[in-house]
Structure formats: structure tokens, C-alpha cells
């Protein structure tokens, strides 16, 4: 895995590829803006959120201990609008004995195509995710997740991706997804409505 990482970091040097950092939880400042945004967009849901729990939260793909869960690095190519994610899953992602859980693969695919949608479209939400599993992936192996932005139609972003072995000989999974851009202008309007009409706590 380290070898692959170095290979990609070399590609970054010529400027066409960018290494995307990935944090455990979104930095506080961004989180504040993002929270108000999402809460305004989904007013009924936000009532149920316990503020205490919020501070403990960790993004799902980084909540495992070293080596046990999702170990991954993403590289983004702006010109081709694609992301390659080098992923090594750990033993706590098991489904059938000896293989990855379908949901673990789904999570990594969602993370990769999601990142692709975010860099192109700002704040987005997954609308559809369609995954076809061709072969089961053995546990603790390294795979490449290649995602490609196919089309942008207004607020919709179509991203497709495939999961392959490192030598690109085995195709494990194919997926297509649809993301929707959340509209910032709409947010302010809803926020005012919510603030003005919400009864005092």
C-alpha cells in the first residue's frame, strides 16, 4: 500500500493530481457553518439532534483504530474530474468469513464518489447509489476505487465508479450514483422560517 501511495504522490508533483486530506471529524469552523446549513434544510430532523452527541461524533470512515477498519487515501485529478482511492480494509470489516462486507464496500464507494461530487458541486447529498458486485473481495486486501464524474445536469451530479485489484486485472464491483446539490439560497429562506416560527424551547 505504501508503494502505491508513493507512486501517486509522485504523480501529485507535476500538479495534475492532488492528494486529498481526510480528517476524523470536520474542523470546527466548517462544522458550524455546515450544521446550520443542514439543520435549516431538514428542520424536522434537526430537532432530534442531541448537541452533546454531536461533539463526540466521528466520521464513519475514520472511526476505527489503526489497521482494523478503513485505511484509505484519495487522489484527485482536476482535469479529468476523477478520483482514485487506494483502499485497504481491515479485519473488522468482515461480512462472509474471509471477505469484505457488502456494506463496507458500499461505504467506501459512497465516500469516494461523494468526494468527487463535493469537489465539483459543493455541498451535496447522496440521492441514489446502485452497486453491482461482480466478485467478492478478500478481507485485508488492497483495492483501487476509481470514480469518474460523468455528467452535471443542473443540480444533479452523476458519478460512476469501479473497484479493481491493484494490477487492474480483476474487476470486483461497479457502481453508479446520483448526487443532488443542496441549494444555499433556499437555505436562508428556510432558516428564517424556522427561526421565526419555532416555538420557544
Amino acid at each position: 500500500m505504501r508503494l502505491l501511495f508513493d507512486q501517486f504522490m509522485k504523480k501529485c508533483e507535476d500538479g495534475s493530481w492532488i492528494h486529498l486530506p481526510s480528517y476524523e471529524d470536520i474542523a470546527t469552523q466548517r462544522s458550524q457553518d455546515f450544521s446550520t446549513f443542514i439543520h435549516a434544510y431538514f428542520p424536522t430532523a434537526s430537532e432530534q439532534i442531541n448537541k452533546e452527541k454531536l461533539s463526540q461524533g466521528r466520521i464513519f470512515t475514520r472511526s476505527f483504530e489503526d489497521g482494523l477498519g478503513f485505511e484509505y487515501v484519495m487522489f484527485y485529478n482536476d482535469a479529468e474530474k476523477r478520483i482514485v482511492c487506494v483502499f485497504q480494509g481491515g479485519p473488522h470489516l468482515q461480512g462472509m468469513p474471509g471477505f469484505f462486507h457488502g456494506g463496507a464496500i458500499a461505504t467506501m464507494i459512497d465516500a469516494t464518489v461523494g468526494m468527487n461530487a463535493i469537489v465539483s458541486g459543493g455541498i451535496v447529498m447522496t440521492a441514489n447509489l446502485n452497486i453491482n458486485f461482480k466478485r467478492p473481495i478478500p478481507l485485508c486486501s488492497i483495492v483501487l476505487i476509481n470514480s469518474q464524474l460523468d455528467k452535471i445536469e443542473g443540480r444533479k451530479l452523476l458519478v460512476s465508479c469501479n473497484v479493481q485489484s491493484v494490477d487492474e486485472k480483476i474487476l470486483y464491483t461497479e457502481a453508479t450514483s446520483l448526487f443532488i446539490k443542496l441549494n444555499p439560497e433556499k437555505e436562508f429562506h428556510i432558516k428564517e422560517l424556522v427561526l421565526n416560527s419555532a416555538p420557544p424551547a
Partner: protein
Amino acid sequence: MMRRGFQAAATLSRLRALPGAPRILPILNPAAAFGSSIDSRISRFCPKKTDFKDYALPNASWCPDMLSLYQEFLEKTKTDGWIKLPSFASNREHIQGLKLPTGLAVTPDNSDCRIITRSLQVEGQGYEHAIFFNPSEKKSVCLFQPGPYLEGAPGFAHGGSLATMTDETFSKTAYLAGEGLFTLSLSIRFKNLIPVGSLAVLNVSVDKIEDQKLYMSCITQTRDQKTVYAKSSGVFLQLQLEQE
């Protein structure tokens, strides 16, 4: 479950497709080495006496909604033919004595393997869930409460965590209802975000069994069914497990 005659039973090496029988007929033979009935799968899957820890039991982190719905379903296990599925740390513990068909089986080198839905073992941090299965209707209900370590957008569950829970419920249902083992495809349409720490109810039903494939669909919603979180469908491949 109806069997397609004993000629099929004679060819052990062929993978058999189960015909889509809508009802379960009384068991004619006890579980043979090749092939099994739904009741034998259930009894192997849910052992009466076991040393393995069952994680699908209420704990301090469960929200009141989840606790009360769990009690409701526990009552149904006594009267309406529902079964509460135990949840162990790994699928290996569920299929004691059986293994994946040769060709697919991978030698177990790491005993630290855990199923992803039971990997975060601190109470309340990860997937708090319990699955109830109804054999006669081939339906399942999963009570799911995502913990703070399953976040995506701040305060809400990651789409992938719902995908994992859906795949897991499909997988247990597929195995018990028709020996479905591997996911062939999974399709999820997200409608709303699930707040961390709240209850989401997944209703899974088996639509049809055809060509060695099980087709299932699922709706994920709040308990009062007023908010739909997601609609999904899945196709599983039928394969028989072999004796070890």
C-alpha cells in the same frame, strides 16, 4: 420447503436453485447434508444454548423509541411467529459446522475478524441494532440506531452506514429465507438524513426467488412511518454452505 425431486438431490456437485414456493410446507426430511430447510437454517443460526455473546440485546445507549419497539416485537415472537435473531461478533459463529463452498472458501488466518456491524463494541457508538424475522411471511424488521461514530454529515448518519445496515439485514434475511449468501447488487435511494441516536426501522421483504437469485426490497423509515429515510432493493446469490 418443496424440493425438486430426488434426482436433483443426487447430483451433489451442482448448485441447486430453489423453486419459488410461496409457503413453507411441513419438513419432510430433517436437514440432509446437502441442502437444508428454512427451519433447520433457523435453528442452526439461532442456537438455543451458546457461549457466543448476543449483541442484539437492549443496553443503556438505546433510545426510548427503540426500547419500546423492541419490547413490542418481543411480544410478537411469542404470538405471531416472529423470531429474534441473535447477533454474534462474526458470521463464522452463526454458521458453526458449515463453511463456504470450496472454490470460495478462504483459509482463516486472522481470528480477529469481526463483522462490520459489530466492530464498534463500545455501547452506543456504532450500529445498535436488532433484527426480527418472520419465516412464514419471509419478512424482516431491523431496529437500527446509528451511533456518533457512524457520522457522515455532522449530526447525521453516514450514507454508507445505512448501506451497511441494509445490506446486513438483506443478508440475514436472504440466508434464512432461501440460502442467499453473496450480494449481487444493492440499490439505495436516499430520501432523508437519519439523525445520530434516533431510531430507524428497516422493513425488508423477499419479493421473489428465481434463477438462483433472491430479490428483496426494503423501506427505511421512522417508527411512525411519517418520514421515509430510504428505499432500497437487493439481489442475492443462492449458494449452499458445505459441511466442514
